[in-house]
């Protein structure tokens, strides 16, 4: 079952869904299918129950953090320089809006065929991080979605029991994000170098000992 046929079948059966094949350059050749969060539950139910596919085993649910990148591109704009119309090159830095992504690996225990990979991403990494939960479709996603909520901060709507699973409940931030700063913890190194040295110096000044 190539991904293209799966995509066309989904488009036929789930009206109005937005699909896009994300190609995977690595030799593993495991391309994935980006689905839009609005129709996610409908697509998932279709994939689980449709006869040729029968993807009844959601093996793996992964959270990935894509922070915003700074893209600087050269732009040619016309500017009045001392009265003369001139072509001037300007470097403009735009900060792309990062997003959080959830990847589902689906298998079929009945038909024993390989991973069909679905991807969903949130609008941004700050407050619009809601995604529909697929736990009602596959119960195996329950703990793994709770883990993504705990470590990445994606809020799964429709999840039966969305709590922190690994960190303690009073914990505030989401530690697996790329921009997570660990609480400062004094590290003893007999021969400190680079950032451990800075931290040791900083600790020295805090403790007022020279």
């Amino acid at each position, binding site marked *: 079952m190539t991904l293209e046929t799966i995509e066309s079948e989904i488009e036929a059966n789930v009206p109005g869904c937005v699909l896009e094949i994300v190609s*995977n*350059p*690595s*030799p*593993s050749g*495991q391309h*994935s299918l980006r689905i839009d969060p609005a129709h996610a539950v409908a697509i998932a139910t279709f994939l689980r129950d449709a006869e040729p596919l029968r993807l*009844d*085993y*959601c*093996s*793996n649910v*992964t959270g*990935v*953090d894509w922070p915003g990148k700074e893209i600087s591109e050269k732009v040619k704009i016309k500017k009045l320089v001392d009265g003369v119309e001139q072509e001037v090159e300007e470097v403009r830095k735009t900060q792309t809006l990062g997003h959080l992504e959830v*990847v589902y*690996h689906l*298998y079929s*225990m009945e038909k*024993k065929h*390989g*991973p069909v*990979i679905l991807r969903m991403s949130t609008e941004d990494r700050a407050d619009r991080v809601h995604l529909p939960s697929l736990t009602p479709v*596959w*119960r*195996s*996603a*329950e*703990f*793994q979605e709770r883990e993504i909520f705990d470590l990445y901060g994606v809020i799964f709507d429709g999840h039966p029991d969305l709590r*922190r*699973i*690994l*960190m*303690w409940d009073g914990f505030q931030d989401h*530690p*697996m994000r790329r921009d997570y700063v660990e609480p400062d913890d004094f590290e003893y190194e007999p021969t400190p170098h680079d950032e451990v040295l800075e931290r040791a110096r900083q600790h020295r000044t805090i403790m007022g000992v020279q």
Partner: protein
Amino acid sequence: MSTATEAIRIIPKSPGANDEGQWLEVSMGPQHPSTHGVFRMDVVLDGERIVKLKPVFGYLHRNHEKIAENESYLGSMPYTDRLDYFCSLTNNWAYALAVEKLAGIQVPERAEYIRIITAELTRFQNHACLIGFLTQDMGASGTPLMYAFREREKILDLFESLTGARMMCNYMRFGGCRVDLPAGWIEQARAAVASFPRFLDEFEQLLASNEILMARTQGVGVLSKEFAVNAGVSGPVLRASGVNYDVRKADKYGIYDRFAFKIPLGEHGDTYDRYMVRLLEMRESLKILELALRDIPAGPIVDPKTKIRGFRPKPGEAYAHIEAPKGDLGFYLISDGSSNPYRYRVRPPSLVNLTVLEELCIGHNVADVVVILGSIDIVMGEVDR
């Protein structure tokens, strides 16, 4: 007359009835003899019967995936030993398989045979330990565990002479293995494998037909087929419910298709079936081991072309999963071309198998919860990562 009998056997009405106050909330907490590590279950008891059970994880969350993001690909290999610290060689194999898929590395013939031999030895000692712990949870304090650990020590000696460490082998490399078999290892392995059937017969004869074990496990924690598949349960727990899904046959990784071995399936899906499926799986592992140890070819043990220093796979992603003794262990790697993985995800079979724990335990007694948890075979290093 009948009304009087009803008066005596007062069964609490539907949950939430006015006898809500009768329920005792207690936590079989992180430090508990039966939880195989730091696993906690918040249990609501009506007398001795379980009414609600909420598992709590995270007491051994050692941030394996965050550390792996700041580590090179090879640097994460010793960390995979500490995932499921009973089966370090199968963890290594799963991780090596994922990186080989990511970078498209071939594995020579002899390395494939060594991988199968070490994986089946790991499966054997993992199932032996599980049966030892399961019977200890049931009250046979220590005796079967002594037998199981006696066999495990034999296998650990083999691992130690091969990889240098008893438990933390760090043996697989991308494209093969780290070091070739020492002289005489194959004969040692054959002698050990030849001695295992006697141990299995002893175990089966002592335990399988033991009335106490049958009374404590038959009909306890029945897992239905549909619920098992939907909850993503994998491994012996799934096959005990009758679902014929084994990654060695379904996904055909390694050279498992050269060996004829059967997949034991259970019918009722209760704790006794989970125990018997593992016992039969150990016999199948011995069959594979005899075949593999007999016709292991000579040849290189690692693909000479793979670079060890400065290994930078091209950007892309890969997911590979194997049939680990506990279930379907998978590694999902996203590479951005640098020497560190951009995202390193472990699919933990023990954590997903625990999804069914609450449904299995409701209605049983507290003593049965201990046995059901023992039969699901969790290791906290893999559950919490």
